[in-house]
């Protein structure tokens, strides 16, 4: 609350102060960004966090672009593609594309990138992202074939989201591949680097970016300047003084208060992230009540999901209560059931039927970023007699607790692993391992089946069964979506962009 009050003071000094600066930036067609964290590399291979991802998408191109506004793939460095069989994807590459250093892009760069990504000794932390790929093969200078390890329904999404192409002659020279992203981040994207220091990053528009599509168009802003300012209040002060043009907010009170300022506007972009309540149905934690279906149904009935979510999550009407663990944005997402609707009376009745007329004790484990939601959920549960308490925990602590089987109910959020595919939530929740608090062999069988085919219709039918069963068994209650929320100058247009885990791509941002 203290932070919010200070933010209110900072904002109430009104933003007229910064008006002159903003007009100057608009005239210069410059965008200034306040980063939450200092960036040490410009390519997502080194740091797959949202801000690095945003820069990586601006500087580098993958072979494909997935437009989450339409759910369709579009060309990026590849101009066309076709599956020769369910394990071989042939791609024609754009000709005439140049890297920022002026060198030509061709099949050798694709080959180099994929050989490196599939090298088991590459030292990449998230090497599993490239597990679908077996190898790349050069057909001619502008044709490549990507071979997958068996049918790989997520291969094209991985190509679009996780596999920017690097220049073979530059990247190949580095013994420590981490040096590439911080010393010579040379790509083919709509922006190129002018300055990359620990204090400031400056990008300028790439005039040679000719291979764009509506999914990844050429940049409209000439210059992007980014400075790290980890403290939320400092970001607000910089917004107030016109030193930055937008900030990303995760605190609802701050977002609501700032959105009321006359010079500012709130934009909430749909994201891959949603918040959930996962219940230990397999009784790993020793809380036997939770293995009773009626109890889990009662818990879901007790929660007014929309009200709870909108009371703690910024974004207003853009915050929705999903009906399943996959979102419409996920490919092959299908379901025909919904979680139990808000009905406290039904919750109490079910608890009595389950043998808990006076409720029971339960601990909600809340990961960082979800503690407010967990408190709100605990409040709803207490209203029907379930004595819920919240354990706030660090991320590493949560994984330890999860591994030890001590997690009764988890209130957390899930980014879909940055992959808009129905396979992603099913694997995240129900795959055998530390996270599995359900031991549902049927869902696990569907999970494997869904990953064994590239037929989209068949995949939808398989996942429909899995998501319906997850709803019927009330294993995990999807609580609310979590849009990416930005507060920005009214003259800046931050419409929903083609995607990316940051929630916007600055090559699509523009001044009115």
């Amino acid at each position, binding site marked *: 609350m203290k932070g919010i009050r200070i933010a209110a003071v900072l904002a109430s000094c009104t933003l007229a102060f910064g008006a002159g600066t903003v007009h100057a930036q608009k005239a210069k067609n410059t965008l200034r960004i306040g980063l939450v964290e200092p960036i*040490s590399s410009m390519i997502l291979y080194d740091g797959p966090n949202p801000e690095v991802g945003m820069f990586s998408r601006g500087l580098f191109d993958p072979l494909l672009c997935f437009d989450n506004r339409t759910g369709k793939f579009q060309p990026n460095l590849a101009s066309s593609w076709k599956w020769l069989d369910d394990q071989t994807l042939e791609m024609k590459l754009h000709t005439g594309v140049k890297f920022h250093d002026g060198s030509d892009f061709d099949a050798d760069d694709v080959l180099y990138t994929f050989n490196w990504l599939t090298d088991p000794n590459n030292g990449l932390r998230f090497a599993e992202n490239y597990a679908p790929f077996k190898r790349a093969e050069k057909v001619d200078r502008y044709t490549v074939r990507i071979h997958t390890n068996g049918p790989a329904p997520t291969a094209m999404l991985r190509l679009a989201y996780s596999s920017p192409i690097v220049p073979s002659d530059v990247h190949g020279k580095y013994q420590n591949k981490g040096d590439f992203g911080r010393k010579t981040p040379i790509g083919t994207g709509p922006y190129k680097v002018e300055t990359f220091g620990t*204090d400031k990053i400056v990008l300028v528009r790439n005039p040679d970016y000719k291979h764009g599509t509506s999914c990844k168009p050429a940049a409209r802003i000439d210059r992007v300047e980014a400075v790290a300012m980890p403290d939320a209040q400092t970001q607000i002060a910089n917004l107030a003084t016109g030193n930055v043009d937008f900030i990303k907010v995760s605190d609802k009170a701050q977002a609501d208060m700032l959105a009321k300022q006359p010079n500012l506007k709130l934009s909430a972009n749909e994201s891959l992230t949603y918040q959930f309540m996962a219940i230990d149905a397999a009784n790993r934690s020793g809380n036997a009540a939770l293995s009773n279906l009626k109890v889990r149904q009662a818990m879901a009935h007790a929660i007014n999901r929309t009200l709870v979510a909108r009371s703690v999550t910024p974004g207003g009407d853009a915050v929705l209560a999903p009906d399943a663990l996959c979102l419409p944005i996920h490919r092959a997402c299908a379901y025909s059931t919904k979680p139990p609707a808000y009905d406290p009376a039904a919750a109490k009745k079910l608890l009595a039927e389950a043998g808990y007329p006076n409720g029971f004790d339960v601990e909600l484990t809340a990961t960082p970023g979800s503690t407010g939601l967990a408190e709100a959920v605990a409040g709803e549960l207490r209203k029907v007699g379930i004595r819920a308490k919240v354990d706030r925990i660090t991320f590493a602590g949560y994984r330890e607790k999860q591994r030890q089987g001590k997690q009764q109910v988890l209130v957390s959020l899930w980014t879909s692993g940055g992959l808009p595919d129905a396979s992603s939530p099913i694997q995240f929740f129900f795959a055998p391992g530390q996270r599995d608090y359900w031991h549902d062999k049927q869902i696990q069988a569907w999970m494997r089946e869904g990953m064994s085919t590239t037929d989209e219709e068949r995949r939808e039918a398989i996942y429909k069964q899995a998501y319906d069963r997850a709803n019927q068994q009330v294993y995990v209650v999807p609580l609310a979506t979590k849009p990416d929320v930005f507060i920005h100058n009214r003259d800046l247009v931050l419409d929903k962009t083609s995607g990316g885990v940051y929630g916007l791509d600055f090559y699509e941002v523009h001044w009115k």
Partner: protein
Amino acid sequence: MLRFFLRRLGVSLLVAVTVSVIGFALLRLSGDLASALAGETATPEEIARVAHMYGLDRPLHVQYFDWVWSALHGDLGTSLFSRVPVLELIVDHLGVTVALALSALLLSLVVAIPLGVVAAMRPNSWVDRTALALAVFGQAIPNFWFALILIYAFSVKLQWTPVSGSDTWVHFILPTITLGLATMPSKMRLTRAGMIEALSSDFVRTARAKGLSAGSVLFKHALRTAILPVVSVSAVSLGFLLGGSVIVESVFGLNGIGQLAFHSISQIDFPVVQSILVFLAFCYIFLTMLADLINARLDPRIKL
């Protein structure tokens, strides 16, 4: 003196080893590092691969001794995220932190010593009361709150200084005031107490009796004696300033060691975190030892 130095060095080394063990253990016991590093989607096999890649599957004592051995050879490891050598990261960020710490120390001395002297010359006067109130204010006020108030007043309202960043010396004004205010009170109180004691001592009375000017008595005799503990405290507070600027660097967006530590903790970049922890502890230990040696040099009773 040599014996004292060797004894003090031995104690410092013992403290350094203890700090390194505690720092190492705290990080390892904070949770399942391999699981956290492997990410939410990782399979058990993937977690095992990450654990093996970073040596987290080895016994704790083996990990510790391996790390110490490498550190003694100048290798503090590599950042898990940027894959930059940790030593290089620390050197890159050290300049901002040292500049901030030195400027804050200087400011605190420039304010504390004159204020302490004036307060001692007029004990229990309004000047003394004001100085004490300022000291209480400096000690009691939270850093982050004072920093935000300064930003509000001087950056947002008056627009005299930038809100954040470290591009120019102007960017350091508000952080310097914030940190300087936090370390000023102890020096002011020491100066005041030392001056009160010195001004009532025999040698000052003798100096006055000899007809020396008030300024000469005050500055050449009393202050020279009173300021001795301030010198040693300053060395210690420099250690505090180097390690204690995490929040101030974060609020003012200064890309120093504090912000590097903050950022690395949030990313569970444990090679960076443990190295910064030990580096700052060593700085503190060295400066404390230096303060002890200065004290011993200036006050012969300590040698006994």
